[in-house]
């Protein structure tokens, strides 16, 4: 064995020490960014391109990690708890699960100084969801960046409708008649032909976020107010309680009259899509246009046959319709319940100044728009300019045209924007629990709603 040269050993150690000391200094010039992995390659490509441009123009190195939807949130929560969060985080479920709570607990950096100068480029509804309360300061400020949005749409199979002997002109525009049409007329006609189908795919499961998105949309149809703008619970007020009982009754009646597949009480988020795609249901609602989007993807999928691709194209262009909800029972237009996806800078970040610069860069039209449009319609822009682009407005794509009209018609936010505890209410799916109490346990809607209110008060009161 060769003798170890003491001098070279100590030289090596010294070098190692110098490098070790230099590394933290270098870390100042690296930005840690965590994003949700895009569903489409286009989204990731656009993101990588804008990061590349940012690195070239500022010389700051960006370390990007892409995570799957669920993973992103789990990791972020763990990192925040451990005190080692990334500098910038963007998970598509932050708004549902954590943004409000983090803002309240002072875990997010106040980014008003970045947003205020560019306030006017945002759609007011979108921006309002990032104006959050900080429990430590007792003040509201901008604690997140709006990136993209989603809202509820109705989807149905036009060919199945025609198969039942109806045309689109037959679809009623009023609330109760609308649901009766699909449940009794369309379902009845198709079943008479011997098909084992259900009119509506109504999410009922405690395990699906679709359920609360869908149910809260219905609740809006009955003018239920859950919280006021200061976050105080108003659901227990008599008229709201009564309206909620109506909403529960109406939503669960779709299940009890056999209009939706019984297994909808077990559905995961994917299942209402699956049941729509395989034509078990004629109509379903969903919070993005990923339903027709899947067929658009299939039409260019090399692993499918020519026939399947052609069929998928036909499905996207003709057979599947994206549609509006009917008018509310009182005759008014149903407000669009919209969620805005948020990106945040963490208070424990080591590079806040750089993080702010990065986000300011990303918020520029030339950077944000390709990212949003890379999702081929799944996400809607938050900026006025983004919404005005031909991608949405030129009318060549029937699905995006509907989405665009819904958003320009105005949106309402989720309760958790005003009271962050409602993210827990959603996570526990108190809404689905009430529905299941009615359909599975046979409890009266009144009692189910009272239990709901009690639980909400426990969590958010």
């Amino acid at each position, binding site marked *: 064995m060769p003798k170890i040269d003491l001098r070279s050993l100590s030289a090596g150690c010294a070098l190692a020490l110098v490098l070790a000391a230099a590394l933290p200094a270098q870390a100042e010039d690296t930005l840690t960014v965590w994003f949700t992995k895009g569903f489409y390659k286009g989204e990731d490509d656009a993101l990588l391109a804008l990061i590349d441009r940012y690195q070239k123009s500022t010389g700051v190195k960006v370390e990007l990690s892409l995570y799957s939807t669920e993973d992103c949130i789990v990791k972020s*929560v763990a990192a925040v708890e451990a005190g080692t969060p990334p500098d910038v985080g963007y998970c598509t479920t932050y708004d549902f699960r954590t943004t409000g709570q983090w803002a309240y607990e002072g875990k997010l950096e106040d980014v008003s100084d970045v947003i205020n100068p560019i306030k006017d480029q945002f759609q007011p509804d979108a921006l309002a969801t990032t104006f959050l309360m900080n429990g430590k300061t007792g003040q509201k400020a901008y604690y997140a960046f709006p990136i993209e949005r989603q809202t509820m749409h109705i989807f149905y199979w036009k060919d199945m409708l025609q198969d039942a002997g109806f045309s689109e002109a037959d679809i009623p525009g009023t609330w109760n008649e609308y649901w009766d049409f699909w449940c009794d007329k369309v379902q009845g006609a198709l079943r008479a032909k011997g098909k*084992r189908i*259900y009119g509506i795919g109504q999410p009922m*499961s*405690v*395990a699906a976020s679709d359920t609360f998105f869908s149910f809260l949309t219905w609740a809006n149809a009955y003018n239920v107010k859950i919280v006021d703008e200061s976050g105080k619970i108003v659901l227990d007020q008599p008229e709201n309680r009564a309206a909620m009982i109506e909403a529960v009754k109406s939503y669960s009646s779709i299940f009890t009259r056999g209009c939706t*597949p*019984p*297994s909808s*009480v*077990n559905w*995961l988020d994917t299942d209402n899509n699956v*049941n729509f795609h*395989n034509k*078990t249901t004629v109509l379903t609602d969903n919070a993005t246009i990923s339903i027709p989007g899947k067929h658009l993807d299939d039409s260019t999928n090399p692993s499918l046959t020519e026939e399947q691709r052609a069929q998928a194209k036909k499905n996207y262009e003709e057979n599947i319709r994206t549609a509006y909800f009917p008018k509310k029972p009182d005759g008014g237009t149903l407000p669009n319940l919209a969620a805005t996806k948020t990106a945040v800078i963490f208070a424990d970040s080591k590079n806040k100044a750089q993080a702010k610069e990065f986000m300011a860069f990303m918020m520029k039209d030339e950077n944000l728009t390709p990212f949003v449009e890379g999702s081929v319609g799944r996400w809607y822009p938050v900026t006025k300019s983004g919404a005005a682009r031909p991608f949405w407005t030129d009318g060549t794509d029937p699905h995006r045209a509907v989405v665009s009209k819904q958003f320009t018609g105005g949106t309402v936010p989720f309760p958790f924007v005003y009271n962050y505890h409602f993210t*827990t209410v959603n*996570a*526990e799916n108190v809404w*689905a*629990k009430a529905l*299941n109490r009615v359909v*599975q346990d046979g409890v009266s809607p009144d009692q189910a709603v009272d239990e709901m209110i009690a639980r909400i008060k426990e969590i958010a009161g």
Partner: protein
Amino acid sequence: MTATTVHAIPAAARRSHRRTWTIWGAILLAPYVAVLLVLVAYPVGYGLYLGANPASYRRLFADPIFLTAAVNTILFLLIAVNVKMVIALGLSGFFAVPRWWIRLLLVLFILPWAVPSIPTILSFRVMLNPETGLINQQLFQLFDIFEGPPWLTDPWLAFFGAVVVHIWKSLPFWTLILLTGRLAIARDLYEAASVDGASRWQRFRFVTWPSVAALYVTSVILSTIWTLGDFNSVYLLTGGGPNDSTQVLATLGIRYLRNNALDLGVASIIVAMPLVLPLVFVMVKRLSKGGEA
């Protein structure tokens, strides 16, 4: 080599040899001791520390899902373990019959246990889907039954579905264990019994059962402990069931973890310990009694 050669080693040599052995013994044992300390003792300690807050237990008992999960777990144990072991006992008799095709069948029979859970349990999940699953679709196509049984949407059927899946997965292992026990019984005992004119049932009661009884009891206890920890059967089949109605203790911990209520997750496990630890204690005694060299 006879035992007397041992005494030929001089006493001093024996002492120093003893010391070397002791040192090496400690060295070779060290890796596992490290594993025990770092990967078992620390997590267990950490778990106890996380579960030290009495407020967690108050919240836990106030959660109606906990009560459902506790009841489900006990029912699951009682039904799954006993049904499984009785079937295993019976099937072990079947597989003990000397036929070439039965031996082949045994090879096939092991598959559910050898193949990983995720694809197989998910296969069950798709098969049992009330609308689109194989079973109800066939009922519709063959017998014109429009609404087949609500396999996964009725809480009780879903629960029994999970029990069935659990039995499907673990039956081969226990059948094999009991089969090995049966095969250890000397053939001539059976022959003597036949000569004495014993019926099949009498042969079982007086020859087979006395020999496998101890093994059967050990297996039941072991199976109970393991069934307590069966996460996959419930999670992959029902995900906790329609409206959290099929949750068991094993899946409950994970549900709390997902909802960021880690302390409740740990509390729900600690609460199960009074049931688990006595069983474990009994098992350790049984196993180490048999294993003392």
